[in-house]
C-alpha cells in the first residue's frame, strides 16, 4: 500500500482506511488474538510439550507436506487449464469454466466421500491401481489427491486475469525476433506469470493445510501415518483439552502465516525487479 503523496482523485481516503482497519480487526485480528491467548493456561513448557509430541509433529509434517506438494502439482496443471480457458475458444467452454469452480462450491464432505468411493480398493479407480500396488484411499496419497482437487480452482482463478492481461504481442514479438517456442515459453511467458503462480500456490496451499471435510474421509486417519493436524485439533477438543487444541492451532497459524508472508515478499521482490 502506498500513501497518496498528492490529493487523490477519489475522495475519502481516511474514511475508507478507517473502515478497512476496523473491519480487518473485527473479522481477522480479534478471533486470531483470542486464539493466540488461549493456550497459555498450560504454561510455556506445557504448550511446548503439547506441540512437540511425535504424533503432533508427524501430523504437522503430513498436513504441511501434502498441502505443499498438492499446491506445487497444481501449478503446472492450473497454468495449463487457465491458459486454455483464456486463450482458446472451444465448444462447451462455459461448461468447463463452471466445472473449475465445482471444488469450491461442492460441500467438502461430499467431495471427500466421492473421492473415497472412487479411490477405495473397490472403487472404479482404486480397483485399477490396487494390482499395481498403489493404495490411494486411506493413505497419505489420498490426502494429496483430495488437496489437488480442492486446490485447483485457486490456482486457475488466480492465473486467469493475469494471462488475460498478458499481451499476445509479446509472444509474437519474441517469435519474430527468432525465439523458439521453448524460448518464448521459458523467457517471456513464464517470468511474467511467476508472481501469479506464487500467489496461486499460496492460496491453494493455505486451503490445503486447513482442509478437513474432503480429507477426513479419504485419509485413513492413522496416527503417525495419515492423521492430519486439523483432526488432531478436533481430537483434543473432544477430550475437552481446549488449551491443547488452541496450542496446535496456533502453531499451524504461525507456520502458515510464515509461508504466506514469505511468498508475498518473494512476489513483491519480483515485481520490483521487472
Amino acid at each position, binding site marked *: 500500500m502506498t500513501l497518496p503523496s498528492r490529493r487523490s482523485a477519489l475522495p475519502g481516503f481516511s474514511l475508507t482506511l478507517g473502515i478497512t482497519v476496523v473491519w480487518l480487526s473485527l473479522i481477522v485480528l480479534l478471533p486470531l488474538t483470542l486464539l493466540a491467548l488461549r493456550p497459555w493456561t498450560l504454561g510455556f513448557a506445557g504448550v511446548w510439550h*503439547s506441540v512437540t*509430541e*511425535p*504424533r503432533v509433529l508427524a501430523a504437522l509434517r503430513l498436513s504441511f507436506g501434502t498441502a505443499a506438494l498438492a499446491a506445487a502439482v497444481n501449478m503446472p496443471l492450473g497454468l495449463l487449464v487457465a491458459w486454455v480457458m483464456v486463450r482458446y475458444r472451444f465448444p462447451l467452454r462455459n461448461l468447463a469454466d463452471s466445472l473449475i469452480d465445482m471444488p469450491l462450491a461442492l460441500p467438502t464432505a461430499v467431495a471427500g466421500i466421492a473421492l*473415497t*468411493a472412487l479411490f*477405495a*480398493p*473397490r*472403487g472404479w479407480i482404486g480397483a485399477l491401481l490396487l494390482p499395481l500396488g498403489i493404495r490411494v*484411499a*486411506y493413505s497419505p496419497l489420498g490426502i494429496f489427491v483430495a488437496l489437488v482437487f480442492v486446490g485447483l480452482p485457486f490456482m486457475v482463478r488466480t492465473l486467469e486475469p493475469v494471462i488475460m492481461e498478458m499481451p499476445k504481442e509479446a509472444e509474437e514479438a519474441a517469435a519474430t525476433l527468432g525465439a523458439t517456442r521453448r524460448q518464448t515459453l521459458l523467457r517471456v511467458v513464464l517470468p511474467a506469470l511467476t508472481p501469479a503462480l506464487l500467489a496461486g500456490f499460496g492460496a491453494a496451499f493455505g486451503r490445503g493445510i486447513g482442509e478437513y471435510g474432503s480429507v*477426513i474421509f479419504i485419509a*485413513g*486417519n*492413522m*496416527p*503417525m501415518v495419515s*492423521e492430519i493436524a486439523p*483432526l488432531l485439533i*478436533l*481430537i*483434543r*477438543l*473432544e*477430550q*475437552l*483439552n481446549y488449551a*491443547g487444541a488452541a496450542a496446535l492451532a496456533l502453531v499451524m497459524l504461525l507456520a502458515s502465516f510464515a509461508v504466506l508472508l514469505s511468498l508475498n515478499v518473494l512476489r513483491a521482490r519480483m515485481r520490483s525487479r521487472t
Partner: protein
Amino acid sequence: MGAAPRRARAATTLLNVSYDPTRELYRAINPAFIAAWKAKTGGEITINQSHGGSGAQSRAVLEGLQADVVTLALAADIDALAKRGLIAANWQTRLPDNASPYTSTIVFLVRAGNPKGVHDWADLLKPDVGVITPNPKTSGGARWNFLAAVAWAQRQPGANEATVEDYLRRLLHQVPVLDTGARGATNSFVQRELGDALLAWENEAWLARQEFGGGAFEIVYPSVSVLAEPPVSVVDSVAGKKGTRDTATAYLEFLYTKPAQEIIAKAFYRPRDAAVARQYAERYPALPMATIEDFGGWDRAQAKYFSDGGLFDRLFTPGK
C-alpha cells in the same frame, strides 16, 4: 408425575441430545411417550432429537445446547457435564440400573460365510484379516471396542500388562482406517467393503444386517465382550430453567416401562426388563461380559487408556 394438572397446557418441548446409533430407537420411542403422556396428563409435548458423536454431543451441551435430557454412549460423557455443574453429581443413582435403561455389547460383523474364519479376538490377528474400528479418541463406541479387547486379553492364561499391551498393539496393526465415529466405521466396512471384521455395537451390527439384507453379513459373538451401558439423565441446569423437569423425568422413566422396553428390544438394544429380555433371548445370546467397574470406572479407564499420553496414544508412538 401424578401431580401434573389434568388440563391442556401450552405445548412443552423437550430436546433429547443423543449419540449416533440411537436415531432409529428414539424415532420409535418418542411417539409412544407423547401418546402415553397425553393419555396420562392431557398435555401436548414435542420432542426434538439431536444426534452425533457422544463426546461431541456432550461438548455441545457443555457449550450451551439447551438439552432437557442427554442419552449418551457412556457415563464419562455425562460425568463431564456433572463435573461442570450442569447435572447433579448423583445422576447415575437417580434412575434404576446405573441410569441405563438399555444395554448393548460389542460384537464382530463379518462378511457372509465368514471367509476369514473370525470367531474370537485371537482370530483378528491373522495376517490377512483387516479390522475396522473407529478412533477411541473421538468415538464412544470405539472406547467400548477397545475395552472389550482389553477384557479378552486380560482373561488369557498368563496375562499381564505387557501381554495385554502387546495384543492391543498387534490388533491396531490390523486396522487400515480409523474413522471418527461408529457410523463412519460401519460405512467403511459395509459400503467401501474395507476389512474383514467390523468391531461394532451389537445394535449397529444388527441394524447393518437388516439394512443390507440378512445374507450379506454375519454377526459373530466373541468369547468375552463388555457390557456397554449407555446412560441417560435430565440436564438439571436446563430443565430447571425451562421448567421441564417433570416432563423430562417422566420421559426418562418411560424408557423403563414395558412398552418402551419392547421398542428397545426391537431396535436391537438389550432390554433391562426381565420378561422382555426372556422374550428376545434368542436374539441377544448371553456371553461373559466385563463391566466398566472391572476397569475401575470411567475416570480411571479414561485416564489409563484414552487420555493424552494414555495407552492408546502410546501404542502409536514408536520407541516407547
